[in-house]
């Protein structure tokens, strides 16, 4: 009986570890995505993060395919300062499907010299594909 308890306890630890490892990976990828979108704009990184059927929804309602989103981000002429990611939360639907929510704040400096405050709440859909978490969906909403 005691042994059974130990085995069950160990299995629980394994399961918790697997989840927290997944959670760590997903949070790291979320930060990488945010940094790439608003700072480096590196298309190769985006290509490695985006699933083939990814769709990318902006706060004003337009939705882009993977190709459109990567082209749009990598050619975005705005720059961003005072960026911050906060209130990040991860939900696992099952082992392979996870939802991330976070708040993103920044000041956007447009090419024509305007400074626009950004206050976004962002939902991401990460799905494990061949052992790697890939972005399948993104929807932003403006909270200001």
């Amino acid at each position: 009986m005691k042994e059974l308890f130990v085995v069950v306890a160990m299995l629980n630890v394994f399961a918790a570890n697997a989840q927290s490892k997944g959670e760590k990976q997903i949070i790291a990828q979320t930060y990488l995505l945010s940094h790439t979108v608003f700072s480096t704009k590196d298309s190769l990184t985006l290509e490695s993060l985006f699933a083939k059927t990814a769709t990318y929804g902006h706060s004003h309602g337009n939705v882009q395919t993977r190709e459109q989103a990567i082209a749009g981000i990598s050619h975005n002429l705005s720059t961003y300062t005072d960026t911050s990611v906060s209130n990040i939360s991860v939900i696992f639907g099952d082992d392979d499907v996870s939802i991330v929510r976070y708040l993103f704040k920044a000041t956007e400096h447009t090419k024509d010299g305007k400074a626009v405050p950004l206050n976004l709440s962002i939902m991401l859909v990460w799905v494990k594909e061949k052992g790697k978490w890939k972005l399948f969906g993104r929807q932003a909403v403006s909270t200001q």
Partner: protein
Amino acid sequence: MKYIFAICLLFISVISLAQVDSVSLKQAMSDLDKALVSKDEKALVQLLHADASYGHSNGWVQNKTDIIEDLKSGKLIYDKIENTSVTIVAINNNWATVRTNTNATGRSTTIPTFELKLHVLQVWLKTKNGWQLLARQSTKL
């Protein structure tokens, strides 16, 4: 020849299975919208994943308990939820992502009436209890 026939048959069955999936998903989507309007708690318990996360166009996020309790208390009441377009972006045997354009009308304790034109991203999981909404985020169009 017999083999070709068998292979064709196999493809047809695979295609029809995939179609059944999207049909059952669209049914679950419509059932959920109806349950939100009619405050059907039993249907909501069935159609919402235990960890469901329901994000509104002002940034407010409800979990499963919030959705059910806020309908009961009258904090948020829907009079009508109507999709003007539905696109199943990806679907397989475990999950699906859907984008809709949706008109929602209703009332809340802070807003006497609202009439919203929304774009919505939904994530559904296929569980042993059927399709369940895991997450949803809307933004105003």
